[in-house]
């Protein structure tokens, strides 16, 4: 049992922190980037590729770096720390993860090679429109078409390639769709956290199938990986939100004294620290499970995301409240942190969804052993 990072991983973390710190040195820098299309810095995306960050989870044969969940978690956490809007988890862990799990040798080498090099952005279209329009696939072999609507598809308008889930006669299938495919209509918009999403409509759109048979398990396993990576992104965001709030309490004066004079506020800050340490522990553990005991990864991901849900709401809400009015402004940082934490919570299953999963199996074991 060991929770410390090795020196190589620390070097990776510092390099990513350096690149992101240059682009997002202040909240205003980030706001400027997210106000422009495509909602993130293409230049920074390229720099992340140069560091090898975009190929971390993929094998060297596929053009990746052959690293593991720990390295991915470190990058995600740094993204969260400054709310970097580049679609690292969306494109690399989720969409890229589906290609890595379902694609054949040639598909992986082509798509993941270009992704690792920063040449393309992938988007995962895995949520069917709540207004109906489940995406279905018809065809066989090398000839497939998709029909239906996915929404929201994060970064779906900018993406060069879409990784799409669709119903087939043999269960859930995973498909690749080119950005310029016929019968594809993408309507992009901003999300509340400064990100981008799109409605993506397919109408007899040609697609390439990844793998065969029912791919539900591939999807669930990849979602578990993404939940864990998002949990790390959330940890980074919560850490900054908490530290910013604590600093504010030390400097903001009212009634002629700094706010940290008031015990009511100090105690609430102490509770933020408690939430922060607890969620950090669970999320670190979930990555260790993914690395060393992947058969428990779905459970660990649910546990991490539940803890992130509870802590994210607590820290996000209190960060604004303890700041007062300034925390409500777009010019100041903490409100954006709460907005991002709220987005992460509701993507790939919220706290209640995780709790439902865990509650259903709570009678299956006695004492919960995190190591065994």
């Amino acid at each position, binding site marked *: 049992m060991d929770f410390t990072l090795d020196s190589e991983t620390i070097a990776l973390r510092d390099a990513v922190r350096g690149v992101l710190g240059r682009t997002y040195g202040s909240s205003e820098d980030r706001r400027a980037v997210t106000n422009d299309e495509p909602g993130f810095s293409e230049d920074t995306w390229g720099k992340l590729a140069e560091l090898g960050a975009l190929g971390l989870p993929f094998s060297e044969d596929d053009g990746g770096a052959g690293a593991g969940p720990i390295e991915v978690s470190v990058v995600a956490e740094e993204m969260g720390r400054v709310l970097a809007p580049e679609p690292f988890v969306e494109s690399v862990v989720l969409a890229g993860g589906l290609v890595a799990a379902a694609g054949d040798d040639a598909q992986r080498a082509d798509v993941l090679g270009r992704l690792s090099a920063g040449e393309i952005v992938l988007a995962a279209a895995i949520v069917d429109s709540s207004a109906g329009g489940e995406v279905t696939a018809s065809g066989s072999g090398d000839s497939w078409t998709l029909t239906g609507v996915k929404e929201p598809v994060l970064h779906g308008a900018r993406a060069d390639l879409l990784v799409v889930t669709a119903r087939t006669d043999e269960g859930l299938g995973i498909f690749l769709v080119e950005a310029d495919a016929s019968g594809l209509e993408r309507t992009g918009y901003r999300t509340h956290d400064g990100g981008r999403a799109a409605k993506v409509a397919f109408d007899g759109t040609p697609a390439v199938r990844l793998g065969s048979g029912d791919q539900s398990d591939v999807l669930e396993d990849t979602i578990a990986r993404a939940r864990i990576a998002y949990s790390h992104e959330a940890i980074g965001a919560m850490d900054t939100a908490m530290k910013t709030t604590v600093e504010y309490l030390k400097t903001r004066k009212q009634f002629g004294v700094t706010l940290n004079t008031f015990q009511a506020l100090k105690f609430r800050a102490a*509770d933020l620290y408690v939430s922060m340490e607890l969620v950090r522990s669970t999320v670190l553990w979930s990555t260790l499970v993914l690395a060393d005991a992947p058969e428990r990864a779905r459970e660990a991901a649910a546990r991490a995301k539940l803890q992130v849900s509870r802590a994210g709401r607590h820290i996000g809400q209190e960060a604004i409240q303890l700041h007062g009015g300034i925390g409500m402004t777009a010019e100041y940082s903490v409100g954006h942190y709460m907005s991002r934490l709220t987005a992460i919570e509701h993507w790939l299953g919220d706290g209640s969804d995780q709790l439902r999963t865990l509650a259903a199996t*709570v009678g299956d074991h006695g004492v919960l052993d995190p190591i065994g």
Partner: protein
Amino acid sequence: MKLRLSDEDAAFRDEMREFFTTKVPQDIRDTVAARRELSKDQFVRAQQTLNEAGLAVPNWPVEWGGKDWTPLQRHIWHEEMQLAHVPIPLAFNASMVGPVIAAFGSQELKERFLPATANLDIWWSQGFSEPDAGSDLASLRTTAVRDGDEYVVNGQKTWTTLGQYGDWIFTLVRTNPDVKKQAGISFLLIDMTSPGLTVRPIELIDGGHEVNEVFFEDVRVPVGNLVGEENKGWDYAKFLLGNERVGVAPVGSTKRLLAQAKEIAGDRLSDPILSSRVAELENGLLALELTALRVVAHSADGKPHPASSVLKLRGTELQQEVTELLVDLAGPDSLASGAGDGSDVPDWSRVATPQYLNFRKASIYGGSNEVQRQIIAGTILGL
């Protein structure tokens, strides 16, 4: 970073598990499992069983019976003991006065007290809190005035847990009233059979007799019973309380209790309201346990990690929440706490409410949870 225990630590865990589940007398483990009060004799037999195997005081220096274990191994020892329903060695002996004597006591005090303390031949009581010195412990007023080769002690201590069994009491006493309050305190060991010392029970809301008041009227104590230097007692007390906080997050026993609650709930776990409450508690306990492991990994220098306040705070909250769950599971049967032989109410239901009431203490003792928040805000966040 890695998840698994090393082969060495895994073997250590198996060894501990084997010992605790096969060598500690079954009647004692059954009493703990049934959440019934242990007798003095059971406490003593349990600790002597551990001590015989060298497992009672691993946190002490090796020359006094301690073990050269890593912090992780000590954690495993502590957890496995709780999971096996084995009573933890008496805290007053094993984690409070023993380490203080070992660290600050004279060679004579060490030889006289440490072996008997490890073996629970001497039952120690704690004489810290006073009626007007609770969270503000340093304002204590019990005095010790030097008279030749003796101190004359006058005053009152309170909340002395299991003081009815005590042979000796370690006390904080004021030896200099004229300096800053922390600078005039000494750490004095007092024979509880001394003339002028009386112990009076305090009945608690659960109906039990767990704590006491201890009165001192001109109690004469040899100066040789002073630990370390006169007026340095506050330093020793801080050392002691730091140790207390580390062991105060009862992860293993709370996990075990939650597992018992699930067993009791049985088919009722199909109720989503109940099962989600249990799942949320289980996730909270997981976060606590993992935080304890992180703290353990980073306290290699022997000093308590500042985040140990998190463990005390959240550990006691979860302990209380699980005792609360058991009362709710018992429902109307939870009123039958006084039921005798003719009653059909199961044993676990009878003890549920007294234990729930009793464990309100957990967020008060060992530095109340408000004191822990103060520590977190001050020493960690710099507020």
